[in-house]
């Protein structure tokens, strides 16, 4: 499709030399001198357009050429020349003083291509206004014999101007246009356009007589002409009906605010408009009542002719228009609701009309309360069947999620199913993450409630599993019979087998509340192991970290201590219970570390509460090797208790750090000596194990920070319970001895080893003065008040200097 030839054409166009270009211009001017234009001229114009559009920077044509093109545009009756000259002029700078004459003679036709140029080159609002005025003059006073297309594009042109500059139309203009819209919508002819006879010589008078317009299903039209009416040919006002209906919603939306004080569209006109809209809805409803016969017809006629697509398109538009009309004038709700309700009744059982049902849901949401209608069934559809069965429809997903975003406040208030429906809503994300992750970034905070927080966390972590399951579900539908020859997927077999059905069904559940997660999660992960390289699953996995960040940032605002404690244990538990996708586990660990830290900073007492879990985690040496990534490189500025120390911290053990930092009486009075001791012993055991031998085969050596943070944590704990000091000192001096012998199996880099040993020595010398150690390693809160750098008695470096005369004090501050 896109070939090397095209690339080289573009290159040539871009790199054309100025001299060659000027020659080309003069040749073209000569070609445009005559009256007749042949293929060569057309060809040159096409090439000129390519040259001009190939660069970002706008060229200026020589004035003569520009004038010629302009006159060609305005005077030629050959559409190709109009189109080409308009296209060329749009890519160039208009010459000053060359602005198109806005006040054209009302009789001369304003062709679409001229209008396009005008619109692209208007320099100011006043130009636009005068252009509008001219358009409307021609609209009002056109002669009946005028060329058909001259007025047909007036409405699209107006509409495009409205998008950016609604104030270009005066009140009078708005009234004029509104009246004309009503005319066309309500009173367009219901007879077929005679139009051109296609029979040549042999058309008799009989074939020239147009009959009445018919509906899509063949029945003769009622009293209205609508966009769904068909005929052999169409009259001009029928075309205007189409254009009017096409812009109606935009018109109503733009001017309903303008018409605040003065009834720009007075009530008669408004009800005319509404009447015609309601007629479209009922016309289409009656057509849809005849759907079964339509199916039969469809077998005979090509699909394009009787496609329900145009039906759906009109229904969507009609419902939206009704909605905005009712929003503005609540008294119309009672008239419109029965119509919409009837439509809902006919369409709700057929999922192929899902996209029509969304605007209907919006209507219910906006007006259901006023009309005292029960909307339960609608929400069952929107939060139930749609996500569960139509998750793979990209357009429905986009529209449904947009619906949620726009109505978030109302939904949270009036539709309790919303927050419980996240298992279903997440299916959109699991299926097509890149397309909808942005929407979920906006929606996720609203789905985080205290009641469902834990279940939501599990669901987010298992999003890749859900993704794999949805793939399996679809595959299972398309290939219900197992493929012979054993080429089938293991996971697909598992999906179908009754033994594991329950696991998958849990993932596919529609509503929250039946349990946070399943017991046999690890089984599920094993069954889905082969899915870890499916592109869809990988794409999904890439979005989970972002969503987790949002989740945690939100959950701290709604959770109490108990829930936060529970979440910490979920974090610890799940860190080893994730689908094994490359990089996924690492990323999740990183997110966990960041937020575990934040949680502990926020509620230090959690550390004591969860000390058992944390200890268990920290005390499992295996975690040093497999979850070193969990807590890698957290750079963070601590402003806890006004401490202004920048701590660069990277290790498996921020948890360890956390234990060291927060397990103190100053943070929580429940912190007893026994607790400190038990914590100490757990960490001590790990440190011994890590520094006594090489890591188990297959695992990397722990980073130096792991060792130093363990040592620091032990030192801190010891400083709070002085009985422990001898044990630490003993270890540290042993460490110095061992490392003097040269290399050690647990550290490969000599520089790192030196750093570790130096740190050990610093801590050892600090612990020789227990009270100093205590004040350095566990400074009382008032030390960190901002004035510390001004208060000579309190300033940390000075205290240290005073106590120890240690020239290395600055480093101690920065290597906790």
């Amino acid at each position, binding site marked *: 499709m896109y070939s090397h030839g095209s690339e080289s054409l573009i290159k040539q166009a871009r790199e054309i030399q100025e001299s060659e270009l000027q020659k080309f211009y003069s040749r073209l001017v000569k070609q445009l001198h005559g009256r007749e234009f042949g293929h060569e001229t057309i060809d040159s114009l096409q090439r000129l357009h390519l040259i001009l559009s190939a660069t970002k920077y706008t060229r200026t044509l020589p004035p003569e050429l520009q004038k010629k093109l302009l006159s060609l545009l305005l005077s030629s009756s050959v559409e190709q020349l109009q189109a080409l000259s308009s296209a060329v002029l749009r890519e160039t700078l208009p010459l000053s003083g060359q602005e198109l004459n806005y006040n054209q003679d009302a009789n001369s036709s304003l062709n679409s291509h001229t209008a396009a140029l005008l619109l692209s080159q*208007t320099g100011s609002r006043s130009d636009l206004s005068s252009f509008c005025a001219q358009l409307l003059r021609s609209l009002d006073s056109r002669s009946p014999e005028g060329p058909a297309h001259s007025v047909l594009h007036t409405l699209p042109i107006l509409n495009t101007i409205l998008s950016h500059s609604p104030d270009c139309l005066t009140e009078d203009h708005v009234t004029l246009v509104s009246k004309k819209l009503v005319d066309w919508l309500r009173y367009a002819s219901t007879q077929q356009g005679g139009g051109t006879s296609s029979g040549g010589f042999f058309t008799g008078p009989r074939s020239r007589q147009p009959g009445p317009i018919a509906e899509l299903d063949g029945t003769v039209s009622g009293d209205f002409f609508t966009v769904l009416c068909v005929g052999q040919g169409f009259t001009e006002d029928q075309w205007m009906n189409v254009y009017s209906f096409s812009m109606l919603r935009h018109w109503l939306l733009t001017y309903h605010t303008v018409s605040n004080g003065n009834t720009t569209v007075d009530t008669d006109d408004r009800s005319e408009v509404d009447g015609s809209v309601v007629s479209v809805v009922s016309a289409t409803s009656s057509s849809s009542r005849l759907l079964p016969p339509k199916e039969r017809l469809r077998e005979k006629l090509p699909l394009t002719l009787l496609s329900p697509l145009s039906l759906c398109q009109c229904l969507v538009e009609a419902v939206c228009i009704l909605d905005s009309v009712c929003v503005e004038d609540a008294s119309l709700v009672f008239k419109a609701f029965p119509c919409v309700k009837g439509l809902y009744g006919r369409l709700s059982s057929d999922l192929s009309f899902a996209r029509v049902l969304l605007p209907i849901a919006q209507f219910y949401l906006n007006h259901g309360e006023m009309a005292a209608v029960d909307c339960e069934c609608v929400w069952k559809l929107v939060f139930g069947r749609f996500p569960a069965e139509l998750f793979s429809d990209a357009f429905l997903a986009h529209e449904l999620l947009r619906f949620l975003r726009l109505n978030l406040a109302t939904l949270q208030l009036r539709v309790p199913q919303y927050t419980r429906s996240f298992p279903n809503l997440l299916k959109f994300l699991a299926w097509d993450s890149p397309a909808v992750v942005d929407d979920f970034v906006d929606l996720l905070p609203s789905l985080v409630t205290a009641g469902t927080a834990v279940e939501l966390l599990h669901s987010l972590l298992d999003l890749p599993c859900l993704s794999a399951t949805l793939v399996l579900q679809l595959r299972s539908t398309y290939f219900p019979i197992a493929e012979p020859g054993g080429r089938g997927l293991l996971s697909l077999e598992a999906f179908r087998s009754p033994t594991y059905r329950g696991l998958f069904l849990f993932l596919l559940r529609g509503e929250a509340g039946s349990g946070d997660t399943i017991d046999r999660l690890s089984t599920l992960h094993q069954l889905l192991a082969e899915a870890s390289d499916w592109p869809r699953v990988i794409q999904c996995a890439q979005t989970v970290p972002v969503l987790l960040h949002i989740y945690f940032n939100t959950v701290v605002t709604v959770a109490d201590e108990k829930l936060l404690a529970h979440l910490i244990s979920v974090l610890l538990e799940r860190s080893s219970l994730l689908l094994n996708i490359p990089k996924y586990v690492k990323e999740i660990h990183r997110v966990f570390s960041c937020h575990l830290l934040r949680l502990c900073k926020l509620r230090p007492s959690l550390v004591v509460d969860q000390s058992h879990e944390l200890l268990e985690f920290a005390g499992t040496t295996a975690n040093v090797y497999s979850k070193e990534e969990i807590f890698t490189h957290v750079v963070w500025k601590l402003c806890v208790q006004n401490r202004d120390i920048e701590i660069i911290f990277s290790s498996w053990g921020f948890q360890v750090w956390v234990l060291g930092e927060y397990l103190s009486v100053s943070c929580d009075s429940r912190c007893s000596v026994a607790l400190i001791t038990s914590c100490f012993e757990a960490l001590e055991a790990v440190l011994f194990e890590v520094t006594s031998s090489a890591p188990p085969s297959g695992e990397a050596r722990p980073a130096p920070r792991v060792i130093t943070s363990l040592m620091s944590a032990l030192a801190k704990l010891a400083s709070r319970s002085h009985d422990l000091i001898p044990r630490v000192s003993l270890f540290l001096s042993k460490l110095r001895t061992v490392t003097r012998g040269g290399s050690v199996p647990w550290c490969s880099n000599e520089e790192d080893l030196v750093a570790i040993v130096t740190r050990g020595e610093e801590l050892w010398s600090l612990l020789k003065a227990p009270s100093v150690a205590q004040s350095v390693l566990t400074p009382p809160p008032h030390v960190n008040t901002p004035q510390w750098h001004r208060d000579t008695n309190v300033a940390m470096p000075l205290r240290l200097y005073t106590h120890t005369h240690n020239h290395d004090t600055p480093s101690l501050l920065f290597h906790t």
Partner: protein
Amino acid sequence: MVHSFLIHTVCPVSALSAAESRVLYSRVFGAGEGLELRPDERRLLHTEKLLAVARQVRSAVALSRDASGRVLVETVPGEEVVALQEADSGVLRLRAGEPFPGEMSVLWLGVQSLGFTLVCEPHENLLLAEGTLRNLTRHCLEHLHMLGPGSEVLLRSDRIDVLLSRLLPHGQLLFLNHRFAQSLEKEVAAYMAK
């Protein structure tokens, strides 16, 4: 309102980096946007924004094709309907400011190595926009012989202009039942035959 329509590459192009896209045709509708800028500044702004959109669609197409795992089947001239049926399709949300001032919905169709993209305002009737995009694409494929190796899209852009003037005049989406559509398509066919 439709803000713009563009045709661009969604396959790797040798002269560009992997993520970039070559815009082969673009048309911005709407008047009154960027009135405070000079015409050349406005044109540059439009070009840059559309390039940004093309890149995003390129990436979306690549991800969608990856995820679906379907093999791209080459079709030949004459198989336009098949090519359209096989096309990937989707819709993106562009936040306000990225790069348009307001939020936009971007509908796209990926037909082998080319993408056909419609940038719409989000409250627009997307069902209608989708249908219009498919229709436009089918006509482009047919009338510009795009399934062949030709570079007609570059040199015959007037055909696309005329097509747009009938099916999407000044960015207005039209509710055309099959009869109205037939009538317009006859006009288009007559133009293309010349």
